[in-house]
Structures are given as C-alpha cells and as structure tokens.
C-alpha cells in the first residue's frame, strides 16, 4: 500500500508549482548554457546540410553510423512515456502518479529529437517532403510502402501525436490551477490552454475517460513504433547481424529498458533540482527498480536469443560477424562496456532493497543503463555494415567525425532544454494526480474503524 503521507492540498500546490510560479535560481543559467550548446549544434547541423555528408565519418560500406544509432536511441527513450503512463495506468499501479507527466514529456521531447536524425541524415534533406508527404501521388508515384523508411515516419508521427494529446489531456486540470494563480499575459496564456476547465464532475469524467482511451489506443503504437524501427535493419536480408527475426520484440523491450531508466534519471534530477522530496520518494525509485529488474532480464533473454538465432544456423558469415562483434578490437571493448553497463552492474544493485531506495545510486545506475543501451544500438548497426563481406576490396572501418559527435551532443542538450523550458510553464509533477493519490490514502471513518479510502495496490 502507498505510504500514508499527510500533505495538504495547499502544500502540494505550493511546492509543486515552485518551478512554475517562481523561477528557481539555477534555471536561467542552466537554460542559457544548454541554449548555447543547442545553438552551436544547430549551426553545425546547418553547415552539414549546406556542405554535405562528406563532413561525417561515413564511408562505403558503412553508410549508417552515429546518426542512426542516436535516432534509435531516442526512439527507445520515448518508450518510457507509454510504459509509465499507459500500461501502469491501465494496471492501476498507484506509484506511477508523480512520474507520469515527466515520462510523457520525455516521450514527446525525445521523439521530436529522434525525428530530426533521419532528416539530417539523408543526402538531400530538402527532398524529404517528397518522401514523407506523398505529393507525387497525382503522377502515380506513391512512396514505397514496402520500405520500413516509409513506415517509420508514419509510426513515429502517430506516436508523437498520441503522446502530445495524452500529455495535454493530463495537463488540463493543472492548467486550471495555474490560470487561477496567475495574472496578466500569463493568465491569458493559461486561460487559452485550459479550455475552460472548471473541474466539474462532467469535465473530470471526460478527462479520465479520454486518458484511459488514449492509454489503450496507444498500446499498439507502443509495440509498433520500435518494431518498425527494428525492421529498418531486419529487412536487409543480406546483412549479417541485421537480418534477425527477434529484432522487433528485442528492440521494444530494449526500448522499455532504456526509457524507464531515463525516467529514473529524470526523477532523481527533479527531486534534486526542485526539491520535491515529499512527492518523488524513495518508494517510487524502489518500484521502478523492481520493474526494471524484470524488463532488463527480459531484454537480456532477448539478447541471448538474438545470439542463439544467429549461431543456430551455423552460417559461416554470421558466425564471423558475431566473432568480430564480440571478440575483435575495438568492438570487444565496446561489447564488454555495453554488457556490463546495460545489465551486469545495474541489475544486481537493484536487487538490494537498500540500494533501490538510494536516489544517488539509482541515478547513476540508470545513467549506466543508457550508456549500455546506446552502445547496444551502435554494436548492432555499425559492425553489421563494417562486417567482413566476401569481397575484401570493400572492407572498411568507421570512425565518427567530430561533426557527428557534436550533433549527438546537441541532441542531448536539445532534449534537456525542451524539458527545462516546459518546466518553467507547466508543473512536471501532475498536481491533480498527486492530490488524488492523497485522497485515496486518506483514512475514512467506517463505523468505529478508520480504514484507507481505497486500496488498489499492495506495496
């Protein structure tokens, strides 16, 4: 059961709106710093689009590299939103409440960032309109729907639309609160966004139904988005290391692993930066860590399945690729780091209750997971292309150029900046969810006994 906390509604409002109604001291310098990094990144991206992909470290046959790795990484992170807010909502896990908005926000921001990569990665980004928007349909040339690259924008834009709606619907009651506590242009801004929210029973009913419906509708997207991303690789039948039937579930569960870990990172930061110790509590980290143990172990099983599938056929090129991926320099070092950071260090730590409840430990282990998960994607994409093909005259290694590293760093700064800007205008912890859970754990008088108002989950 949820630990009983006596937090008054006034206190909840005051503390959770401390980043919105007031400006924390660190906010402006942090945003300025991130903004500077983002600005430099945008200049580098513009230069690359202007000058050409020759600025990257890509070659023949390593045609995809850091950009696609980072694209898959951010799409993976975006799976946090659905996992936390839709699946946990439908399964009525109470502890999800303070985390839902942060997870959804992370989804929207990371998807938005992920979408940038396939665009700037193309040789002629200005022709992408032709690719995503089939303007040539009148001439009978429809985009090739057999290509996963057509299904990618379809799935991701659907997911982005759904997540944005989901975020917005959950924001409505809090927008009402903000509207009532602001004046001037801010008041006008929130009034416009709150869509006349008054908090009457009919509005609450519609808001709740809307949330549940969107949760259920987004579940299929949850599975399909990363499945489709995995098919970018799995349909390339001639590339050992890419052509695997396990890829769709493997990518989805890997995405949940990295996404939920990113939520843990974010929660720790929120607790430290806005001092929301009363709302983001060790028990939430504990619950997430237990979820992560299951997800990580499922993901580990998929990793072994992938290797098993690859080796089962005893196909010499496939075995050679795995040999290179796991045992040959420099892939072996990356593979060890990937395996150790992705599973070997974090999961045993999460198995200890004391560590699960330690926020600093949770923060660093969750960072480790995402280092490992980024490397996982890199280790799938690049060795597959740099493999020793039968034609030795095309063998080539890959070394990412500074431009690629810079654009990758830009993506992290950009996601952080988007979320910090959001936090200045909207509360990162849903006030109404917090109050609802408070009501649920309040005692009510039944006869002579005092019992919790509602029991929904056993801690």
């Amino acid at each position, binding site marked *: 059961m949820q630990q009983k906390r006596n937090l008054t509604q006034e206190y909840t409002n005051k503390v959770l709106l401390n980043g919105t109604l007031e400006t924390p001291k660190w906010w402006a310098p942090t945003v300025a710093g991130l903004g500077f990094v983002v600005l430099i990144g945008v200049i580098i991206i513009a230069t690359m689009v202007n000058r050409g*992909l*020759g600025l990257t470290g890509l070659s023949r046959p390593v045609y995809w590299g850091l950009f696609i790795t980072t694209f898959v990484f951010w799409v993976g992170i975006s799976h946090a939103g659905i996992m936390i807010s839709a699946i946990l909502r439908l399964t009525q896990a109470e502890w999800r409440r303070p985390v839902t908005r942060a997870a959804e926000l992370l989804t929207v921001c990371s998807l938005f960032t992920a979408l940038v990569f396939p665009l700037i990665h193309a040789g002629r980004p200005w*022709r992408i309109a*032709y690719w995503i928007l089939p303007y040539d349909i009148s001439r009978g*040339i429809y*985009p090739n729907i057999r290509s996963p*690259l057509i299904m990618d924008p379809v799935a991701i834009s659907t997911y982005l639309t759904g997540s944005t709606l989901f975020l917005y619907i959950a924001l409505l009651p809090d927008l009402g609160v903000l509207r009532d506590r602001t004046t001037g242009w801010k008041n006008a801004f929130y009034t416009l966004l709150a869509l006349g929210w008054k908090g009457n029973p009919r509005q609450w009913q519609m808001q709740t139904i809307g949330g549940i419906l969107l949760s259920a509708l987004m579940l299929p997207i949850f599975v399909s988005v990363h499945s489709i991303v995995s098919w970018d690789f799995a349909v390339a039948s*001639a590339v050992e290391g890419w052509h695997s039937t396990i890829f769709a579930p493997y990518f989805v569960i890997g995405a949940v692993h990295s996404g939920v870990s990113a939520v843990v990172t974010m929660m720790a930061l929120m607790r430290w930066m806005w001092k929301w110790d009363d709302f983001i509590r060790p028990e939430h980290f504990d619950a997430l860590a237990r979820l992560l143990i299951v997800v990580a172990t499922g993901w580990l099983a998929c990793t072994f399945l992938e290797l098993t599938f690859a080796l089962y056929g005893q196909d010499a090129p496939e075995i050679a690729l795995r040999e290179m991926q796991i045992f040959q320099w420099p892939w072996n070092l990356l593979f060890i780091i990937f395996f150790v950071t992705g599973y070997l260090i974090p999961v045993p730590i999460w198995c200890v209750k004391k560590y699960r409840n330690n926020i600093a430990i949770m923060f660093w282990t969750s960072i480790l997971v995402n280092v490992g998960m980024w490397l996982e994607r890199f280790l799938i994409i690049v060795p597959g292309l740099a493999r020793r093909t039968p034609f030795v005259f095309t063998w080539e290694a890959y070394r990412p150029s500074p431009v690629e590293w810079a654009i990758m760093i830009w993506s992290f700064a950009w996601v952080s900046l988007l979320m910090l800007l959001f936090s200045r205008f909207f509360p990162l912890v849903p006030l109404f969810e917090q109050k609802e859970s408070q009501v649920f754990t309040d005692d009510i008088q039944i006869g002579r006994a005092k019992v919790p108002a509602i029991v929904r989950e056993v801690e």
Partner: protein
Amino acid sequence: MTTDVEKFGTRNWGMIADLDKCTGCQACVLACQAENNIPINTQDRVERARSISWIRVERYWEGDFPDTKARFIPIMCQHCENAPCEPVCPVYASYHNSEGLNVQVYNRCVGTRYCANACPYIVRFFNYWDPVWPESLRNHLNPDVTIRSRGIMEKCSFCIQRINRTSRKAKSEGRELEDGEIQTACSAACGTHGIVFGDLNDPESRVSKLKNHKRAFTLLEQFGTDPNVIYLAKIDPNKKGSEEGHH
C-alpha cells in the same frame, strides 16, 4: 499470346563475365569512368573509402609461393531479378524496369543510403561531395549521361544510354536489334572480349548460350538475388575436374 511479354517486356539485359579471359588490366574500369561521367577519385576520396567506380576489378591471390596465382574478378551492379535494394527504397528511386534492369532514378533519390546497406555486392555508391573534374576534362563529359549531384546514390546502369541509343537507331531504320549490337562501355573496352552483353530473353543470343555453360555461376547465390550478371569460372589446367576458379 504471352502475357509475360506485356508484363515484363521483351528484353532482359544480362552480362557474362568470363573470368578465364580476365587479365586484370582495368580497361573496363577506365572505360566506365569515361562513359558514365564518374567523378575523379582523388586520393582523399579513396583514402576515406568514398571513391566511386561502377565496375571494379578485385584481385585475389591463390596458392602459396612460388605457385601463387593472381585471380581477377570484375564486380559491377548485378542487376538482380530479386534485388535487395529495391524494396527498401522509400521513394522508388531504385526500381526494376521492364527490360530487366535495376534502375536508379537520380531525381527521386533523397539519399537515405538504405539501398547501399541492403546490397550484398557493395556496388552502390553515395555522392558524399559534389563531383569534381579538372578543367581539362570538362569538355569530355558524356552528354547522354546525367551528372549526379551531391547526396544521391549511383551505380552501374548497364550503360542504359547506349541501350537506348542503339535501340532508337534500329527502330528508325525499321529493323530488329541484332545480338551484340549493343555494347556497354566495359564490354567494348575488354581487350580479351571477356565481357559479353546481350538479351537473356533471346534464346539465340550469346549471353543466353553462355549462361548455361558448365562454368557459369553467379555471385553470392545464398541470398537468392538471381543476378543478371553471370560469371564463367576460371579454368585451372592443373586441377582436373575442378573448375571452381573463383575464390
């Protein structure tokens, strides 16, 4: 009568490369560069593995010293019937035309490079930079061949400009194309006549007869790509019965 002709066209261009005749002289490579307006592969581009050469001659050593033999194999786009590059292109820049050619439509290409990743023969090339020619070569460019800009894929076209030019000429003269009338740049340049180009749908053509030769094989058969480029294996006089000359 046959709907196959309506469906697939009357021709199916194919190529035979006889490895027994290949001396590794690279004349085909040079001819291709000149015919198809392929940019100069500067040292920088070669070092960074971004050179473009629609046909390449790979050289392999066979046997231990002193019985070492050089083996050569020219590799160009195999114009696969089941080409892995075609289904992955989001914009149909890579597609199969009615004459059995795997065609690259430069105007459609957005440069995802997905086709190149899917190709097991690694014969697709990306223009990382704009093409450059020294001033002295500018007037030597072939007017029949599009110059590819930065950011798109290119590959061997089986000299489609020659196919079209010769077909038009035959049509205007009111006659059928003769076998061997169309020569790709590489087949015309091959000093030992090791490269034969022709119509695989015509049972009387040289390519049709050679493709059933006992030395015939295709590259990377395990992927089921069904290439239209067929190789004839090297004859090794020292090995009786075994004519597997390729690596």
